[in-house]
């Protein structure tokens, strides 16, 4: 394994339920739909639509863990709380970036 390959392996975020046959297909679908989910959140943030962003974070918080992505649930919870506490746009941006970073790295491979 080259250094680049090793870095890439480290960079990926794997589902802890990847070997769970009951939901393996669903995890694939969850990951495949990730770009649409990321776009939704970015659009909501750009428009300053905090309600939609909060709804997005809340849904991800409730579901990502079920698909084996517990870290996404943790960061989505922080994002939701940031919005609920009506923190500054910068704070929301930082929290959102953390969630999106994980979402972009989510993989089934």
């Amino acid at each position, binding site marked *: 394994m080259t250094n680049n390959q090793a870095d890439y392996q480290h960079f990926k975020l794997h589902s802890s339920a990847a070997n769970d046959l*009951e*939901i393996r*297909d*669903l995890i694939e*679908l*969850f990951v495949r739909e990730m770009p649409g989910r990321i776009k939704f959140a970015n659009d909501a943030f750009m428009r300053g639509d905090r309600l939609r962003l909060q*709804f997005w974070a*809340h*849904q991800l*918080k*409730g*579901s*990502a*863990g*079920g*698909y084996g992505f*517990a870290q996404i*649930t943790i960061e989505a*919870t922080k994002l939701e709380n940031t919005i609920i506490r009506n923190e500054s746009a910068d704070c929301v941006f930082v929290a959102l970036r953390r969630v999106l970073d994980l979402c972009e790295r989510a993989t089934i491979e």
Partner: protein
Amino acid sequence: MTMSETTESNLPTVLAIDDSELIHRLLRARLHNERVQLHTAISSREGLEIARSLKPDVILLDLDMPEMDGFKVIERLKEDPTTQDIAVIFVSASNDMANRVRGLDLGAVDFIAKPFDVVELKARLRSALRVQHLIKILAQKAQIDGASGLWNRTYFDQRLAAEISEANRYNKPLSLTIIDLDGFKSTNDQFGHLFGDLVIERFSNILNSGRTSDVACRYGGEEFSVILPQTTATEAREVAERWRNQLANTTWHDHSGLMLTASFGVCDLECLDFPRTPAKLVAAADQAMYNAKKCGRNRVDVFSPTLIRK
């Protein structure tokens, strides 16, 4: 609304009300091998509608939903007599103890945290379904007469009111037959109460062996009543004649030659003045039954307004 691939109608039904399709997908996959029929609703409003029409055994209710949250949904469910007995399990990403307590105080039977552990989810669901099953058995037993196995008077009163309301609303025929075993007291005195119990049991079997839509009840003592939905008085009379014949032709092994009979009074809603009420229908069928007694017993009489004048 989406239904799981499982369509066996005798399976317990579970309704998941959650605004996340991601959760619906997970639940469908996770509960696929459980012996349940899973239905899903994507909003509170849709969930309440499905709950009213489906009357599921258990509702898995998301707490945080836009428009109407889970607390408001459970309040609506508990206010409505048709949905108040459905077991509700809250499923929520909120770990707030105050929310859990409030949910339980509002009538939820359990609380599952999201993201849910699949083993815990299945175990809690099975537990709620077991309790619901036992509650249903108890409720049904409370409405059944022990000696005859027929529905009891309490059930009869509720069911007759419901059937009359339905018949009035949709203009459907409905008949009621009231039956009294002839000379039952002297049968008891002569052959003993055990034999009396046997007579009650055999006659109940005759009433129960008819159409599945008929609702046979023990009205009290040696009196019985049968609600016959979508049946005119003429049709109800034919049915009652069959019951009368069956009883009269029953052989009583320890008492050969003994013939036991009953008198039947029949009335349908058409014979009544408005408003057509349960009390009026019972009184009219009773009147017809007493007429059958007066006219020699072991016969079926249909109510007509002239009977009142007699």
